[in-house]
């Protein structure tokens, strides 16, 4: 092996690893706050990426209709919850969040009239649509069963994944799509060529990690989320609305998923079901990070990306086998290091 190949593989691995890091962080976030293992994370990726690609191609993506429809259902759920004490303020707030918000996005897209807008606008619209879907997904599918066991939540999560993946096929077809790069510039350092896209990947990943760190360390909502993660009942007793925490977690996770999708869709062709596998690699990173530590997850994600790059070079047939088996030695080390601690299970 020569140094050039080594550097190329490393570069490739780090770029992919940065994406996995984002996904891993989102998974950790959602799990810590809601105990939900977010299988539909993969759909947030594809929805973000393919919505962006469709918008760039001047098409109206089907995801906006889904967002509007889910908003209506979420509103109905809210009304049902409020039925004992119908209070105008809460209803108005629910209308604003569940009805007006998605309709407003649709309105903007309508106004554009199918002309491909500029890249920034398309990205913003894609993020908003996926954010809405993530928010309503929590409201509809998970909030009513938030108190049940991790297993039930996990199965519900699988159900959401199946339904959303089916919608993905309806909206975007079986054909793969690519989106325009955020920047077409490139710089060359030595033998390595850094495209604007890959620099954007690094920059946005670092910015998001710092942003999450600031959010959790220094804002009231961030601290409320952490409190919910540690003890739901305790958090409720001190006045934190745990359902709101869950909604925020899903909002953040869906936005992060969509950003990841938008970042990779110019690099690789995405299909309606690609997100699942990408999301799973984020999982591997999250598990290696122990589902609790953000920096460890980020480091593990880079490792996963690099292992993937190197194994696709040396043993491309066994690439997935190697990546997914990577987790086993880590799990063994983990279980040797920390013997099972007694937990009060419900």
């Amino acid at each position, binding site marked *: 092996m020569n140094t050039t190949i080594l550097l190329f593989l490393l570069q490739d691995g780090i770029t992919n690893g940065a994406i996995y890091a984002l996904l891993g962080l989102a998974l950790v976030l959602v799990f810590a706050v809601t105990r939900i293992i977010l299988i539909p994370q993969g759909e947030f990726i594809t929805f973000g990426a393919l919505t962006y690609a469709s918008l760039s191609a001047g098409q109206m993506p089907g995801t906006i209709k889904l967002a509007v429809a889910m908003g209506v259902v979420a509103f109905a759920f809210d009304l049902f919850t409020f039925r004992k004490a119908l209070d105008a303020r809460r209803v108005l707030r629910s209308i604003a969040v569940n009805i007006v918000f998605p309709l407003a996005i649709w309105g903007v897209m309508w106004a554009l009239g199918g002309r491909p807008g500029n890249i920034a606008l398309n990205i913003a619209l894609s993020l908003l649509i996926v954010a809405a879907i993530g928010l309503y997904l929590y409201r509809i599918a998970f909030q009513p069963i938030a108190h049940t066991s991790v297993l039930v939540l996990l199965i519900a999560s699988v159900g959401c994944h199946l339904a959303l993946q089916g919608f993905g096929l309806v909206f975007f077809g079986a054909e793969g799509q690519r989106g325009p790069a955020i920047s077409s510039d490139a710089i060359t350092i030595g033998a390595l060529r850094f495209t604007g896209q890959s620099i954007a990947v690094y920059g946005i990943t670092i910015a998001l990690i710092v942003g999450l760190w600031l959010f959790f360390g220094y804002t009231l909502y961030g601290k409320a989320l952490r409190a919910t993660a540690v003890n739901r009942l305790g958090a409720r007793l001190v006045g934190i609305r745990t359902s709101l925490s869950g909604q925020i977690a899903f909002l953040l996770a869906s936005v992060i998923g969509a950003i990841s999708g938008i970042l990779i869709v110019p690099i690789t062709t995405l299909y309606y079901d690609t997100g699942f596998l990408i999301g799973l690699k984020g999982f591997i990173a999250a598990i290696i990070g122990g589902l609790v530590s953000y920096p460890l997850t980020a480091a593990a994600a880079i490792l996963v990306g690099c292992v993937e790059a190197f194994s696709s070079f040396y043993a491309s047939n*066994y690439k997935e086998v190697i990546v997914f088996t990577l987790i086993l030695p880590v799990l063994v080390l983990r279980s040797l290091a920390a013997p099972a601690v007694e937990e009060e*299970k419900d």
Partner: protein
Amino acid sequence: MTSRILPILVFALVMATIPFVPGVPPFWIVLLDNIGLAALVAMGLVLLTGVGGLTSFGQAAFCGFGAYTTAYLTTAYGMSPWLTLPMSLIVSGLAAVLLGIITMRLSGHYLPLGTIAWGISLFYLFSKLEFLGRNDGISGIPPLSIGNWKMLDPGSIYFPIWIAVIICALLSMNLLDSRTGRAIRALRRGHIAAEAFGVQTARAKLLVFIYAAVLAGLSGWLYAHFQRAANPTPFGPHLGIEYLFIAVVGGAGYVWGGVLGAAVVVILKEVLQSYLPLIFGGGGGQLETIVFGILLVTLLQLAPTGMWPWLTAWLPSGDSRKRPAPADALPARNDHRPDTGVLLQVDKARKQFGGVVAVNDVSFNVQAREIVALIGPNGAGKSTTFNLITGVLAATAGKVAVLGKSVSGAPPQEIVKLGIARTFQHVKLVPDMTVLENVALGAHLRGRSGAIASMLRLDRADEAKLLAEAAKQIERVGLGDQMNQLAGSLSLGQQRIVEIARALCVDPMLLLLDEPAAGLRHMEKQQLASLLRQLRDGGMSVLLVEHDMGFVMNLANRIVVLDFGTKIAEGTPADIKTNPDVIKAYLGAVA
């Protein structure tokens, strides 16, 4: 006995007649074949996940081991399918041993995620290996045959599939209703209680994991001879996920929930596949997954525990089982319990958690036929001392000796073998097991039937003795009327008493009780005190932690007082009542 077997017999008869009913479309038989195949895997998951609390997404991979083993051996070496059956089961079982040793130690959410990872990894491995035919798999697998009868069509393989389902359901139910079964059912509530009564939890987990894998392997073996081909697709992560939700939809805690779930999911998918395009005018496959996903989420919101308990709630509930039939007494544990002398010696025991010294060089002993009370304000280190004695925690320094022999570093399972049984400050019963079953867990070490014997019902004599012993101890503590109630339905005070009965099932020489009187009414406390006196007079020693001073002062022979981890006094109740250090610790310094 008959009430247990009869419904299964009826079910078996119904299933046996279905293929002969004129007019049954052949397509229904295919569906039933698929239901049976899925039910086998789901049944394993019921034991693993619903009962044992260990979630696995990787069961499809074990089907793959079963299917590929027979596919390879029958095509490459021309072996008879009946010969490959044990091979398939052994290969899936061995794979489970390897994966289980790695993953079963993981707790909580690591476990399901770990299983997703190796599930996917194995799927890719199947689809890349040359000798397994890569993505195309292996075709031309011979059909099952008996003599000249070749089971070529879905109608004939129907019989082996459903015979397997019914036999496995029986074996699974037998297993759950046994000594080993109780150990498995106790796993879901954490390790400490099970280990305190001698259950080797790691081994129990591995056992149920292997059992589930072997059932999946059996399903894979049948599948290979049903399809007469094997390719990687049905052994991938999506199917692994599907098996798990079959179990959850059906009712993950119930053996028949697995069968019901398989029926619901397989039929639902079929109905969606054939009717949705009619309703929506084409559209094809994607609608099916959408509706299927949405229905799944809806179902979970309506019935989070699955459909089986929801369905059986409509049936008239059978009479709850009566007191177990009297049986030969269990032999006493063969230890030489002395009539005098020191049973338990705690010598300068010390436990540090980081910088906090929870137990600070505490020394005391418990003599034969003596009730010793350990008292002290909250946070004095009483429960930690209990955990040091029973091996739940390892002491940082110092020594614990039983009958003069050091037991420092011994695990809880060894301590209980010496005749030291305990209860817990925070009750650790399995709420969805009856009082009788919970208490019988205490006699775990006094039975010897293993998993295989239990499945084949060879354990009945042993089991009858265990249950009779449990019933005896329950009546001894005065809860005879609650014997067949679920432990979770009792009041907290009664649950503490159930814990005492469970500890008595060990046939202990020393009983460790952590706040036994908390939550009891006055009369109940008096009954408890007289029970403990009676036990002492019968030759047992008791070490108890308690806050109720009236209870302690009237009962204990000796009292040891801890404060901030340090022993500040020891003596008779009369001494302790007037000890200035004790008064200071409880009431603060006199101004």
